[in-house]
């Protein structure tokens, strides 16, 4: 009965306007949060094989140094000095293969082959279980860790253009790889198996024991100083590290820095989009408040009469409060439904680019939506009640 009275003068077009604006605002907020949550792990995730506390150092190669034939290798003294630094926990050297490597992969009848090289670091720098990261000369199978970017290049560039199947990390591990090693007048044929991908190491990594075995067989005489070091530090963000590296003219393979920049950029973009979404939400909130105020204004006499015959301000406010809360709730539900749909669309694209990506939870975005809903609803409820109280005191 009250509702029949109070719904007089409700402007459908105004409420549709509010509804659309609020929906757009809410959706932008939710999508920006969810997108950020989904994409950020691509840049920041720990690959599980090489810990984030490991830094990789090399000496700077400049035009002058290469012309002058200056060594870009680390001497024993260099290594000892690094080991002595406060921030260093342990130091390992990269050992490179001193022989020729030819590897080929067969995918669906097609075969790719290439000359390449191997490198190894001490086993305790690789976080994988010891049984798989191990070479047994009688088993003739070499475990390999590839840079994650290789898979991305294949999936995103090559496979797409050649209409080849995209590969996940798991599938790559099942593809047999033939490896031919030659040097010192000998040749070894082995099987390779990719046991993992690293986004931190930009090299083709094999176990240290395999490197020792193969170098001693195929290049027994050569023994070169390392060009790259891997160091474990106590805190990778320590400023002393950057200062030390700068002073010594070393270079840090800084995927972290790169990821940091991208993350920063992504944060800014997300922040801007989020702000726009919030702005639209706030504006839509104003539209709603204006419509409700107008409605209350048009119904002032009715509200006043209801109050005079004994209705309490709370009772008279309730239909309008329920109306706005119901609309807010509807907006929230539709926005979450749209979010799920839009997310399924972009996640397909993301998966094709980064097959390793983990699905982030919806918790943050959904909770943000609920928070906006709650906040806006509380404001609506308070504003309507204040307006009705003003009518009670008959002040316009």
């Amino acid at each position, binding site marked *: *009965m009250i509702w*029949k*009275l109070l719904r007089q003068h409700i402007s459908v077009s105004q409420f549709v306007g509010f509804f659309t604006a609020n929906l757009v605002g809410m959706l932008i907020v939710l999508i920006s949060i969810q997108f950020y949550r989904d994409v950020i792990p691509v840049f920041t995730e720990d690959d599980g094989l090489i810990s984030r506390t490991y830094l990789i150092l090399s000496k700077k190669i400049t035009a002058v140094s290469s012309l002058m034939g200056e060594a870009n290798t680390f001497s024993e003294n260099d290594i000892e000095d690094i080991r002595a630094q406060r921030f260093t926990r342990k130091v390992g050297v990269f050992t490179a293969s001193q022989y020729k490597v030819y590897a080929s992969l067969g995918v669906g009848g097609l075969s790719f082959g290439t000359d390449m090289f191997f490198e190894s670091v001490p086993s305790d720098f690789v976080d994988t279980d010891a049984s798989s990261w191990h070479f047994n000369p009688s088993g003739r199978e070499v475990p390999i860790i590839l840079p994650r970017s290789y898979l991305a290049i294949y999936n995103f560039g090559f496979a797409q253009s050649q209409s080849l199947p995209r590969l996940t990390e798991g599938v790559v591990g099942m593809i047999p790889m033939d490896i031919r090693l030659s040097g010192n007048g000998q040749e070894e044929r082995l099987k390779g198996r990719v046991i993992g991908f690293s986004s931190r190491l930009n090299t083709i990594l094999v176990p240290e024991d395999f490197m020792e075995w193969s170098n001693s067989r195929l290049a027994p005489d050569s023994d070169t100083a390392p060009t790259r070091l891997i160091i474990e530090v106590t805190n990778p963000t320590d400023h002393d590290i950057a200062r030390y590296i700068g002073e010594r003219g070393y270079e840090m393979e800084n995927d972290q820095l790169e990821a940091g920049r991208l993350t920063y950029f992504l944060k800014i973009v997300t922040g801007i989009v989020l702000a726009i979404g919030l702005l639209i939400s706030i504006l839509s909130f104003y539209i709603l408040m204006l419509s409700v105020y107008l409605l209350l204004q048009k119904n002032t006499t009715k509200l006043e*009469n209801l109050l*005079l*015959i004994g*209705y309490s301000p709370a009772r008279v406010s309730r239909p309008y409060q329920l109306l706005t809360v119901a609309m807010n709730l509807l907006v929230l539900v539709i926005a979450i439904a749209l979010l799920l749909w839009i997310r399924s669309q972009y996640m397909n694209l993301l998966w094709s680019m980064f097959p390793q990506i983990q699905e982030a939870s919806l918790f943050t975005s959904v909770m943000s939506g609920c928070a906006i809903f709650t906040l806006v609803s509380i404001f609506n409820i308070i504003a309507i009640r204040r307006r009705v109280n003003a009518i009670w005191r008959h002040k316009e």
Partner: protein
Amino acid sequence: MNTITLKNVLPRVFSGRENELTSEIWLRDVEFQRGKKYLIEAASGTGKSSLLAFLIGYRHDYDGTICFDGRDISTLSTAEWVELRQRSLALLFQELRLFPELTAWENVEVKNSLTGFKDMNSVSRWFEAFGIADKKDVKIGKMSFGQQQRVAMIRALAQPFDFLLADEPISHLDESNSRVMAEIMQEEARAQGAGIIVTSIGKHMEMDYDFRIKM
């Protein structure tokens, strides 16, 4: 509530004209008692509607003190006013304050659903007694002022009360209808032991008033 007392009350609009007033209400000490019937005779512009607006808590622009059972009504909270309007003070407004977009029946129902005071049969009987039983489902906007006056009275009665305030209740009623209204009002007031305060500028509602006050 047993008594309504006015102590030295004057509407602010009359400030500065104190000497011209010959009122038995303004600037006097007046007491209205539950169970008694009062007629306030007034010429227009003497502030009778103001008095009722003060009593219902709609307006507060007066000097002096109005008390309900000794309690200064300017100290009443919103919740207390709501309670009073639902349980103690029934008011027939001069301007009726009905809802034109609702039917006669719905207008009564708006009040009765709030108080839950009368059942459908009692309300129907009133409609019959007032001779507007056939108008139950007619929108208020389509009814004459006299018919609306009777609907407004039924609505005012659809609640428990200690005082029934009626602001010119019969201004648009013929003699037989005003007699019916007086009977129903007295019957309801008697049943609840309530007081009645009727205002009038012209013809008076026939009732055996305990007090006649000139405003």
